[in-house]
């Protein structure tokens, strides 16, 4: 027995020793450690379209047009662009740009990238973002033309989305199936070095970067799923930046002088949708009544604990085209009862609220249930499995449902067209089955004209109509809180979540 114990002890010691020497510790000086809640899935932008991957890709790749933290579009790999006719845009490309593998950036890479993204065999999640492209023409090495299938004015915002990043043809072809997991080549300020799946990804400063070089030598993205542990890692100084802090941790970190908190209003809207084709929700008075009956501010304060702002309309104020002065529905149960009586339901009715297993949404449904009971509406809450939830709301089997939408391009077209155009009923996005010829007309017009003022006017009118006709209960826009150590400078969070780290420095 003694020998047995002796041998196991030796084995333990050996195992620990091996483990200790396997992964060399990263040099901490000039290394920026960033913690996020999930590991990236794939570094090939033409695979998944998840946030964790986008955040890493944003450092490696660049887009033709860059959407800054202020959501303004600026030149990226394209230095200038102009619209030649209704369908055609011409882009002048930046010269002297090198890919991380030493190749020179040229028009052929742009053509290759977009054609690969649009090829159904690529199975890119984000293909729909560039689906309006009909053809890409290479005019010369530094000029390309993009033709759209029909007039599509928000195209520049779509090209600025991180999934429209430019890949290097040679790197993709050489790597084959290893592209995105073992190889990722872009033109960005950091180049991909290694990836230990579910643990960390290491990026190194790219010395031949055409623009302002990155301030730190190395970025390490760590995947730390537990919110509290992520906060503790920041607190103890093992990570320099922690994304997506949870309310309970934020309260504790607020008083820590070594930590700076950054709160960002996001582009995501959470709403309750009605099935407007199904009685009693086909009656606009009923929908307005419910909008007056729900105490939205209480939802924001209590359930989201301040990590959200109240929504007055369907678009976050940061989105281009958001109405600046929509009048919110007041919380007014008396008015709600009156509207309900006018609609012919003085004693209310029975209905149901659907949600998926998201705990916040379930709480929202519970508060709504109480609010509705006050005006005589008896609502059952049904929690559905996600797949069933999507399928059944797409099929129109619901009364009311709670969902979210992220206007990833920060352009009103993305945030309104799929949700309210009558051609988008069901799974395409319009799960309320809302139909209004005037809204259709305005949305089609705003999509096709490049006159920005005319677009704004059209979107304002759409939002006024939607506010009045209330196919949704407008709930809230979530805010995200990121934390950095006090010695980190230059971190500016992007509302879409894919924060740029090229300007971040560590003192």
């Amino acid at each position, binding site marked *: *027995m003694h020998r047995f114990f002796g041998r*196991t002890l030796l084995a*333990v010691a050996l195992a620990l020793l091996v483990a*200790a020497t396997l992964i060399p510790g990263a040099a901490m000086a000039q290394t920026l450690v960033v913690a996020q809640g999930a590991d990236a899935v794939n570094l090939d932008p033409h695979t998944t379209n998840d946030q964790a991957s986008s955040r890493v890709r944003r450092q490696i790749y660049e887009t033709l047009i860059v959407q800054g933290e202020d959501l303004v579009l600026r030149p990226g790999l394209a230095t200038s662009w102009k619209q030649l006719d209704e369908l055609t845009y011409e882009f002048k490309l930046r010269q002297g740009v090198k890919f991380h593998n030493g190749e020179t950036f040229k028009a052929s890479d742009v053509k290759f990238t977009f054609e690969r993204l649009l090829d159904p065999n690529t199975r890119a999640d984000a293909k729909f973002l560039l689906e309006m492209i009909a053809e890409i023409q290479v005019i010369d090495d530094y000029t390309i033309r993009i033709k759209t299938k029909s007039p599509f004015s928000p195209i520049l915002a779509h090209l600025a989305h991180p999934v429209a990043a430019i890949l290097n043809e040679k790197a993709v072809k050489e790597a084959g199936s290893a592209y995105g997991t073992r190889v990722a080549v872009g033109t960005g300020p950091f180049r991909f070095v290694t990836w230990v799946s579910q643990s*960390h990804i290491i990026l190194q400063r790219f010395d031949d970067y055409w623009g302002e070089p990155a301030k730190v030598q190395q970025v390490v993205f760590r995947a730390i799923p*537990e919110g509290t542990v992520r906060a503790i890692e920041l607190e103890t100084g093992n990570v320099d930046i922690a994304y997506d802090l949870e309310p309970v941790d934020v309260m504790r970190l607020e008083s820590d002088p070594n930590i700076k908190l950054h709160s960002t209003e996001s582009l995501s809207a959470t709403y309750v949708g009605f099935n407007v084709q199904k009685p009693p929700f086909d009656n606009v008075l009923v929908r307005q009544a419910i909008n007056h009956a729900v105490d939205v501010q209480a939802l924001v304060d209590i359930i989201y604990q301040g990590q959200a702002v109240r929504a007055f309309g369907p678009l976050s104020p940061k989105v281009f085209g958001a109405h600046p002065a929509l009048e919110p529905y007041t919380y007014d149960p008396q008015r709600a009862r009156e509207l309900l009586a006018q609609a012919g339901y003085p004693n209310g009715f029975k209905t149901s609220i659907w949600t998926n297993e998201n705990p916040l949404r379930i709480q929202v449904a519970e508060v709504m249930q109480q609010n509705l009971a006050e005006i005589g509406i008896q609502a059952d809450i049904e929690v559905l*499995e996600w797949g069933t939830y999507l399928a059944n709301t797409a099929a129109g089997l619901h009364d009311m449902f709670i969902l979210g939408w992220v206007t990833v391009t920060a352009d009103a077209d993305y945030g309104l067209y799929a949700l309210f155009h009558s051609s988008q009923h069901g799974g395409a996005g319009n799960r309320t089955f809302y139909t209004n010829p005037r809204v259709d007309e305005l949305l089609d017009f705003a999509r096709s004209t490049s006159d920005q003022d005319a677009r704004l006017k059209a979107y304002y009118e759409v939002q006024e109509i939607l506010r009045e006709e209330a196919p949704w209960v407008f709930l809230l826009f979530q805010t995200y809180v990121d934390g950095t150590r006090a010695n980190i400078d230059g971190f500016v969070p992007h509302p879409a979540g894919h924060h740029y780290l090229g300007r971040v420095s560590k003192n």
Partner: protein
Amino acid sequence: MAQFVLKRLLMLVPVVLGVSVIVFGLLYLTPGDPALLMLGEHAPQEQYLALREKLGLDLPVHIQYLRWLGRALQLDLGDSIRSSRPVTEEIATRLPATAELAVLAVLVATLIGIPAGVISATRPNSWLDNILTVLALAGVSMPVFWQGLMLIIIFSVYLGWLPPSGRLGGWEYFVLPVITLGTSAAASITRMTRATMLEAIHEDYVRTARAKGLNERRVIYRHALRNALLPVVTIIGLQFGNLMAGAVITETIFAWPGIGRLAVDAIRTRDYPVVQGVVMTFAVSYVLINLIVDLLYAYLDPRLRVRYH
């Protein structure tokens, strides 16, 4: 012995086949069209049809199963819907991290559990026995999640001795997850050792050994423990199987890149090929560990070898 091993190996076949039917069925037990579930909200029609074809959903179910099984036997479990990586590659890169954790946790648990159990049993109802019993009870009952966070708060936040999470090289990253994972196993082993030792100490052969004039240490460790160890080995084996699968929570708390987190992520994102692969891996490793336990048994107790001849 060789024949014994062979027999035991053959008995594995129906078990693994049974598991494979259930694992395959996972995809069909969930309501809705699997292809639709995997693709989610924004999937265009052509992508949906392509995936249906790829999964072979238009074929009869038994043909689908046989095709799946045929590929699984060649270690082809398909590609992850999410990352497009082969499922076997996903599992192969994560399995070592989990195995490492489970092996260390079992070792630590054994090194603590057996001596603690022996000490308890040789001094029944003493203050030491009482303390150890209470500790063991606490160890079994403590929720892993809570324990992990408490350890982090004590050793990382207040004392600053150990990193809160990660597997970035260095022994210090192992300490907290191994303790967290090993605690309940250590407690179970302590309790089991105490119970079987108490029985063994009162056996005739122990009395004989003492009567022969052997010293007490030799009596306890050579004679009593060797016989008391049999059920303990079973517990250790079971614990090891539990740890492989039970690492899910520990790995999530400590951001440990193991197979448990792979399972959680796959379930959350409805990545069915990965879910199938991970469940299959858990099942097979459980079965294999049981086999090893049985072999150890036969080694420790020669009577068992004879029974299988």
